[in-house]
């Protein structure tokens, strides 16, 4: 089973991304998936978490996620509010929205031990392609590129299923752009 944790702020779509990923894995790849938010009251701007589990067999586990194969951070200021690397496995993948490079991040002791570190300037991609700083689908594309969670085509189908008509095309383009960018980084490693 793969366990993924999303760090976002209330209203910026982290849980929507968690659901898109679960939808892609279950509906379009025939796997089992589960998605849930950090439980409790919802406040715009407050730190929130989302979780996705993906497995080959039915998931009956209803306990919280303690160990992660992948962590995705939608807003780098969250690293000051929460321990975003908690429970990240040694082989785990860490994707973060930042304008800083991997080298710059590694100078920070909080990130220096992460083997699979994928910074991506998702805000810039979102501004360029969506015309707004909404980064959830951008980071979904990046995470799929970084950790091979599902096929990118499944993500695009999930966006078609779950988003309104006016948002689908732009979000698929933005997610694909981030996916390709991360794939490029991995090819050059």
């Amino acid at each position, binding site marked *: 089973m793969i366990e993924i944790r999303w760090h976002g702020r209330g209203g910026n779509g982290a849980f929507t991304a968690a*659901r898109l990923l679960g939808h892609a894995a279950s509906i379009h790849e025939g796997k089992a998936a589960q998605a849930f938010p950090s439980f409790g009251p919802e406040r715009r701007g407050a730190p929130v978490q989302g979780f996705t589990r993906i497995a080959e067999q039915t998931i009956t586990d209803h306990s919280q996620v303690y160990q992660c194969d992948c962590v995705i951070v939608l807003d780098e200021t969250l690293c000051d509010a929460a321990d975003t690397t908690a429970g990240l496995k040694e082989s785990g993948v860490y994707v973060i929205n930042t304008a800083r490079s991997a080298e710059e991040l590694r100078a920070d002791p909080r990130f220096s031990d992460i083997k699979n570190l994928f910074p991506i300037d998702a805000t810039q991609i979102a501004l360029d392609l969506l015309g707004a700083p909404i980064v959830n689908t951008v980071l979904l594309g990046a995470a799929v590129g970084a950790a091979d969670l599902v096929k990118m085509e499944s993500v695009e189908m999930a966006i078609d299923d779950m988003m309104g008509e006016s948002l689908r095309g732009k979000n698929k383009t933005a997610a694909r752009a981030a996916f390709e960018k991360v794939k490029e980084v991995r090819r050059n490693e």
Partner: protein
Amino acid sequence: MSRKAFLSANEAAAHGVRLSRPDVVSAYPITPQTTLVEKIADFLADGEADYRYMMVESEHSAMASALGASMMGARTFTASSSQGLLYMCEMLSYVSGARHPVVMVDANRSTATPWNIYGDQRDAFSMRDSGWIMLFVESGQEALDTVIQAYRIAEDPEIMTPVMVNLDGFTLTHTYDMVEIPDQETVDRYLPAFRTDNKMSLSAPKTLCQTVGPDFHTEGRYLQQAVFEKAKQVIAGADAEYGRIIGRSYGGMTEEYRCGDAETALVAAGSVAGTARVVVDELRRQGKKVGLIKLRSYRPFPKEYFAGLRDRFAALGVIDRSISFGFEGTIYSEVKACMYGGTKTALGNFIVGLGGRDIPKTQIAQMYDKLARMAAGEPEKEIQFLGMRWE
């Protein structure tokens, strides 16, 4: 054709309501039930359903309206949680005593104070003697399927008793999973239209919700008790028939998981049963003979089943997400009472998951360790709160 969707258990339950074709839905929103009644309203707004949706001013009115609608022969639904359920409490016994087959979902949540919006099962168990059949589910799929089954049970001419379907707040209500949504025609074959003579009628006027004094009161309660005894077969039958027509069933009142040669077993109701399955599988891989009993029906309680377990396990534990202060965990009391007459099985009660606290797999494994110690005759307290901050 059935179709698959990635849904929360609240949304799945809402599909169960839609497919049951209620005439009237009356509801007042409360966390964590809100997204369930919102989804029911969405179906109406999108033209996918044609029930009358009553937005009332309180939970008390929600249940009163449900009663009024049911008294007109309407198939009726409502849902609530926690303080909302407590507020509608007065109406629960009106509905059940007058034998109106209303179905409700309780999104299980703790009760104040301390104020807490998170999940445990205190709210439901405080309604133990309300005269409602009480079922617990483990997943979103089971929520959808059990809402449909609930109408079949409630409206059975020999039962005519309301049913409360319990979903764990947040751990189920806000968790998304793949759910198969049956098609309307198949559900229609399983659940016929509601017909009753127990309703207001100009051509056959009668008194409903009547006063009954000491002269007949005991006989009325005797008949309600007889109905709950009969409901044991009806719940099992409704579940089996659902399996034949729609393709899924859940064991009726209880389901055993890997209990065949088990030396120790846990009893669990709700979503924690799902987590316990994972722990059982892991311990089995380590060669430990452990099993799980999922409790699906709390009222009626499967007394004969648990009495039959009397000497089957070396130790039997019960997971409770509620406690009756001054006594024991709520489910544990019932299981233990069924063992009256003597048992060689060591019994233990684990109080966990209160006010939304997570029940991790390590904690369930710890329960099985404790059961193994009890089976070996080592001292363990009978009733234990696990995972305390000072441990």
